[in-house]
């Protein structure tokens, strides 16, 4: 199930809220949340739910055994086995075919292609399970003696399928005890509604524009169409991804959890380094704390460690060479800033720094969107004018979407926080607070209404042809 589906909004969520808030007992609430989370996952993956439960079981038993054998070599062995088993499910379902296909084409052998479909959320929940078992080994968190609680952490439906990657240490105390207040719930609702609007309305319309421009014949793509297309894709991917995090964090707040932030206006960054402090934060900090630093961090072979981390970051986003290329692309710019242009970049006017990052980021998304090298080449040819600068149909498409582009850009850049800072004095006064509250109320209802309409509209499907 996904958040942006009508059965989730109008069946699953009301029933879950009702069952959750019917009693204040934390044990019952945890049980409700666990049952609903399992149903949530099984709705999308009726079979692979066993894989998720098995992953949780492996890391649960590993945690117990590591704790029992603390300080001995056995603890290390159990950690190694747990990490290996957890990652092997990811490797088997996500990377086996990619590896086999690559080896087959390189060495003309015939490794079997498994053709397994990717279980939903596997890239997220395996990492979450790893944070538990590794942190138990490191002594940063206490071992969890109840399997149901660990399973609740791994399967909790708000963050299950698209992050943020919540660490066990972030929420272990909250699983035992958490407070639900009216204001926290109201803020959570606002956050959830904002996410719903970003996903169901803005991201989907931006996706439509991307498809219209980049989804067709690239040899007919004008330079204007190519650049607008990739801007639309950048907006689509940001609104889609950050919307899921917003909805997850908002739902978490409603249930009394505090999940970590995942996006902080990444497109407002001024360098590649800063971009990655603002984009998918929980992933980059995961790789920092669980891969980069254990490898030696800044102390030894740091460049090699970086290369490894960025290869993994690329591969994490998808099992395909274009993602590897995308990871290396960012590695290149991070190294470039570190070794060469970083300091001189900071001395440039801010506008130039923003322009630099936007250009680097946009070109980066080209490797993300197109999966094969020939399309990437065709896109760059189009972007630099090989098929003309402007083409009339594409210009009409773009001008039809001009309001969308303006609105989306406004929300992707920190315009709202800027306005809020400006109005701070006003908001502290009583009248200002009342107006803010009224605005929030209208926003919540209006956005829910628009998002529902957009979701209903996704089924608007007039038949153009007879189906014989």
């Amino acid at each position, binding site marked *: *199930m996904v958040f942006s*589906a*009508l*059965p989730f*909004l*109008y*069946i699953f969520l*009301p029933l879950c809220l009702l069952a959750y808030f019917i009693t204040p007992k934390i044990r019952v609430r945890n049980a409700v949340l666990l049952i609903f989370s399992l149903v949530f996952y099984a709705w*999308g993956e*009726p*079979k692979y739910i066993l894989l998720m439960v098995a992953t949780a079981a492996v890391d649960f038993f590993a945690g117990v055994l590591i704790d029992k054998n603390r300080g001995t070599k056995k603890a290390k062995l159990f950690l190694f086995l747990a990490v290996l088993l957890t990652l092997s499910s990811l490797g088997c379902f996500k990377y086996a075919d990619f590896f086999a296909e690559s080896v087959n084409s390189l060495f003309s052998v015939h490794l079997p292609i498994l053709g397994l479909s990717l279980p939903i959320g596997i890239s997220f929940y395996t990492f979450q399970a790893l944070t538990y078992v590794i942190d138990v080994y490191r002594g940063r968190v206490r071992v969890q003696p109840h399997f149901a609680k660990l399973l609740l952490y791994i399967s909790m439906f708000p963050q299950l399928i698209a992050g943020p990657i919540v660490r066990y240490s972030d929420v272990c105390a909250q699983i035992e005890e958490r407070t639900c207040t*009216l*204001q926290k*719930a*109201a*803020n959570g*609702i606002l956050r959830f*509604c904002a996410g719903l609007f970003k996903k169901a309305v803005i991201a989907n*319309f931006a996706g439509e524009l991307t498809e219209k421009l980049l989804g067709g014949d690239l040899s007919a793509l004008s330079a204007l169409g190519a650049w607008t297309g990739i801007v639309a894709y950048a907006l689509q991917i940001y609104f889609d991804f950050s919307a899921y995090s917003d909805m997850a964090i908002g739902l978490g707040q409603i249930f009394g959890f505090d999940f970590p*932030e995942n996006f*902080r*206006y990444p497109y407002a960054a001024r360098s590649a380094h800063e971009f*990655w402090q*603002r984009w998918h934060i929980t992933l*980059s*900090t995961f*790789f*920092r704390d669980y891969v980069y630093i254990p490898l030696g961090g*800044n102390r030894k072979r740091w460049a090699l460690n970086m290369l490894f981390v960025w290869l993994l970051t690329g591969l994490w986003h998808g099992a395909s060479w274009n993602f590897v290329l995308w990871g290396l692309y960012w590695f290149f710019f991070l190294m470039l800033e*570190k070794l060469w242009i970083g300091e001189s970049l900071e001395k440039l006017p801010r506008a130039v720094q923003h322009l630099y990052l936007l250009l680097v980021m946009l070109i980066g998304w080209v490797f993300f969107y197109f999966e094969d090298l020939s399309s990437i080449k065709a896109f760059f040819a189009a972007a630099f004018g090989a098929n003309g600068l402007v083409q009339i149909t594409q210009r009409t498409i773009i001008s039809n*979407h001009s309001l*969308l582009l303006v*609105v989306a850009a406004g929300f992707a850049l*920190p315009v*709202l*926080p800027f306005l809020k800072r400006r*109005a*701070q004095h006003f*908001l*502290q006064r009583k009248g200002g*607070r009342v107006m*803010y*509250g009224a605005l*929030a*109320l209208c926003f*919540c209802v209006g956005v829910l*209404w*628009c998002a529902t*309409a*957009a*979701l*209903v*509209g996704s*089924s*608007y*499907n*007039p*038949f153009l*042809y*007879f189906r014989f």
Partner: protein
Amino acid sequence: MKLTYDPKAQVSVAPQEKTDAAGSLPRVFAFFIVLLFCVCLFGGFLVSALDTDKTVSESENRALAGRPHFSVQAVLDGSYMTDFEAYYTDTFPYRDAFLSVHHALSRLFSQSHGKDDAVLVDRGDKDDFDGQDLDYEA
């Protein structure tokens, strides 16, 4: 390159989190937000559970998806869930009103009318559609 976190960057660029600071919601509005959200969700839930499902969409000239048959097999291969989502979305209460809001949004953001305006007739799998009937063999 350090992948370290700059705590200053967090403070200065974390406006998404600042909801609790200066402009915190007055309690009464927090109450109304929670109330209205629940009214919308539970209202949607009850109305969609109690209303009678339409079988045909006049505005699209097509048969709407029907309630899927429940079977263990269909649940295990996931087709029940997919069919149920299609059915639920197709028969959502006040669907035509929501569709007109969607068209307004489409006009605003993409100047288009959903997928297309030209509509022909589809019989679907239903026999209870007694609108214009075309001779398929013609």
